[in-house]
């Protein structure tokens, strides 16, 4: 069941009107700020060491990762304005990114010669992903036609 949301209703406020969407919106902003940091090159050497699977092994610049993160977070933020049924695409995108990014941090100390503090980054993104999963399980009441919230 995909509930269609009129554009006027979905974007009547700067923030999403549903509780599920608001959680997704906030987490997309938080993760998107990290993407902005990567895009501006404001990352320390320790972060590059922690993400050495991307930077040293696959030779992916962190600026490109920042662009990818911003794209995912922008998609999740757009989906957060849609009501229940459509916002799950945003949850899917952001949860998948958080889990894979957590693995990127986790792989460095476990399989490569990365520093142990990379596990902190892995844990933080893992927790964000788990929070997204728990939020995705929250039911949002279906809005009836003509009933204002």
């Amino acid at each position, binding site marked *: 069941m995909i509930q269609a949301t009129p554009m006027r209703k979905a974007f009547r406020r700067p923030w999403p009107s549903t509780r599920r969407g608001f959680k997704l919106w906030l987490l997309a902003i938080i993760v998107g700020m990290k993407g902005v940091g990567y895009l501006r090159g404001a990352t320390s050497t320790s972060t590059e060491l922690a993400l050495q699977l991307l930077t040293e092994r696959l030779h992916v610049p962190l600026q490109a990762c920042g662009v990818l993160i911003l794209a995912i977070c922008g998609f999740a933020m757009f989906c957060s304005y849609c009501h229940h049924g459509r916002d*799950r695409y945003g949850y899917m995108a952001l949860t998948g990114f958080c889990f894979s990014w957590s693995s990127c941090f986790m792989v460095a100390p476990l399989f490569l010669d990365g520093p142990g503090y990379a596990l902190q980054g892995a844990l933080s993104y893992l927790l964000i992903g788990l929070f997204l999963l728990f939020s995705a399980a929250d039911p949002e009441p279906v809005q009836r036609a003509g009933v204002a919230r």
Partner: protein
Amino acid sequence: MNGALLTLVGVIIVAASGLAGTVAASVISKRATDRVQNTEDKKVDLSVLQASIVDLTGRLGRVENDLEHERSQRKLSNAYARTLAQVLREHQMEVPAPPPELDLP
């Protein structure tokens, strides 16, 4: 293991975890959506049930009115039969037995 193999393992782990997260979020969201949909269906069922109850209540009211009307008719018939029997007794005539359907209190 050499570096390339470790890198491949890392990439596989990253891709698998991302896919797992995406699938888990999809399944969990779908379940939540279905739960809401089931609740809405039950609400619709309840409204149908409520309409049926209202309809049945109306029918019961009509049946009760009919019964009351029939009971009053029987009372009238009983009163008529008692009066007729009394008149017949006063005139020392034979009183016929009342029909069983009129034998009401």
